[in-house]
């Protein structure tokens, strides 16, 4: 962490690297909104092609893009991993990744086997490339924090998710027989949602909750062991499921308890904030964590009943959990980075965080987000609400896209016209 002479700025990647992943994630969010309008309530049938397409638009297109943004920014800052040539790495990752996601979605829609082969090459290549680099650097770290350990486990899960996905695309393209297709599908889903998405959010939260909101640190038994416990549970599930498919019921119960416990502890930490002011990001965290608990409750219920609505509610609330946390991070990271980079470059006129994105703007997004969730839940019971849910999804991600473009333009404008402190004169 301290090996660089170039200080904080050298530790952070260029602002464009982080912004571009937020931008592509938000664009995939817009696509997701359009897909909701096109597919309507078919998205709630877990076995439908429509559900498959929307799920991958959200998990791959939206969430993975946001998580790459978070990893590029957070690895140097909170784990001390400095990635050389970040722009080049972002290029090598992002272009094949975007193309791969689009081709995969098209593959799901058309069932054309050659599309799965191309998507596998593009997605497998780009994601393996970046996870290998990040994991290699993380493993080499002499001093690990709870966050860096958690990130390592989450990235390992991502690697497993992709390996399992390649088995499935291999089957869909006709290259593999797919003897274990249903077993692998269940493991892919569990590793993706819990081992990757939930675990990465948890790992990052170990540091950012304390950093952004000035709370007491997490207890060691949580921050030190939770990522490993989660991973071991999933790995156990994967191995046993080849012999006993029902093992996932047991794993789901454990996962639900562990994740609800984490959410409860984090909600408690948010009540122990030294900074008593509550901004939109605190509400996004509260909403996300409460949704995680709700999602886990519905998962627990579905292990005892076959009522489809509970399963659908667990999906909606899991998506709410993941997206709410992303929005919480977004409204801290984008204004801070814009100010921080310009300030560190010596610009007197660096815009303050509120000038980049005003707290009221973030609050408005919170209301849009809340309305989106409510309409999705309503559409389970009154189908036409799905149109409103689709429109609100478009508005939500459109709002986000505008904020990124605005921040980027402000950044460039300051660089072009701002008065700069002459760093050279410091001697």
């Amino acid at each position, binding site marked *: *962490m*301290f*090996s*660089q*002479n170039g*200080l*904080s700025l050298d530790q952070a990647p260029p602002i464009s690297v982080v912004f571009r992943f937020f931008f592509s994630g938000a664009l995939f969010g817009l696509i997701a909104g359009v897909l909701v309008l096109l597919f309507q309530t078919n998205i709630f049938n877990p076995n439908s092609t429509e559900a498959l397409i929307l799920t991958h638009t959200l998990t791959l297109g939206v969430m993975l893009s946001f998580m790459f943004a978070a990893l590029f920014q957070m690895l140097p*800052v*909170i784990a001390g991993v400095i990635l050389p040539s970040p722009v080049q790495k972002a290029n090598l990752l992002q272009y094949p990744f975007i193309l791969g996601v689009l081709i995969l979605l098209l593959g799901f829609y058309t069932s054309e086997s050659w599309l799965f082969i191309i998507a596998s090459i593009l997605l497998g290549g780009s994601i393996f490339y970046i996870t290998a680099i990040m994991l290699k650097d993380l493993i080499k770290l002499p*001093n690990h*924090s709870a966050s860096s350990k958690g990130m390592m486990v989450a990235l390992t899960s991502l690697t497993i998710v992709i390996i399992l996905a390649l088995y499935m695309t291999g089957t869909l393209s006709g290259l593999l027989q797919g003897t274990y297709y249903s077993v692998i599908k269940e493991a892919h889903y569990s590793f993706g949602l819990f081992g990757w998405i939930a675990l990465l959010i948890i790992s990052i939260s170990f*540091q950012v909750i*304390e*950093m*952004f909101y*000035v709370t007491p640190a997490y207890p060691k038994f949580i921050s030190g062991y939770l990522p490993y416990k989660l991973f071991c549970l999933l790995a156990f599930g994967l191995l046993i499921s080849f012999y006993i498919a029902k093992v996932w019921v047991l794993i789901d119960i454990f996962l639900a308890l562990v994740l609800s416990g984490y959410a409860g502890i984090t909600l408690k930490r948010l009540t122990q904030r*030294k*900074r*008593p*002011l509550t901004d939109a990001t605190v509400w996004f965290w509260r909403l996300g964590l409460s949704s995680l608990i709700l999602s886990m409750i519905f998962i627990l219920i579905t292990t005892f009943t076959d009522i489809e609505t509970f399963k659908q509610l667990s999906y909606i609330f899991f998506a709410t959990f993941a997206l709410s946390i992303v929005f919480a991070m977004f409204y*801290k990271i984008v*204004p*801070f980075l814009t*100010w*921080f980079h310009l*300030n*560190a470059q010596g610009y007197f006129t660096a815009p*303050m*965080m*509120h*000038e980049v994105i005003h*707290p009221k703007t973030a609050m408005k997004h919170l209301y849009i987000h809340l309305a989106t969730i409510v309409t999705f839940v309503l559409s389970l019971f009154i189908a036409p609400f799905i149109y409103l849910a689709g429109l609100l999804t478009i508005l939500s991600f459109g709002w986000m896209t505008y904020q990124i473009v605005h921040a980027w333009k402000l950044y460039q404008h300051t660089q072009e016209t701002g008065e700069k402190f002459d760093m050279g004169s410091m001697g």
Partner: protein
Amino acid sequence: MIISQFMTQEHRDCDTEFAAAEQAAANGNWEETEEKFMLFANDTLRHFKREEEELFPAFEAQTGSAEGPTQVMRYEHEQVKGLIGKLAGAIEEQDKDAYLSLCESMMILLQQHNMKEEQMLYAMCDRVLPQELKVSTLEKMKAVKL
């Protein structure tokens, strides 16, 4: 762990003072904001002075390097000092939005800085400095005044 304990506690105390000033500003009570902010600013600057005049030189002499972590920390101190000046300006002008906006930047910057010190630098100091030197450095730091 005497260095870590003492310096970490100072970080926590400064956080509390900062939060009190932020809350007062949010309430529009500028007199109280100024009072709490002055406490925060003075304690933070004294903490920096303790590090820059006593702890960092002791660490640098022991490790033979003045270009490693301590240089990064000194630079970040300058960034924080710059923000302290801007926050004081916002109090002067009673500009609530500017004050609260600067508070956001300050807290992220400061917490990030504190984490690096607490997780890395203080731990390194406690590890590499001989016990006697740690005790004497701590005494000297406590004696530092603004």
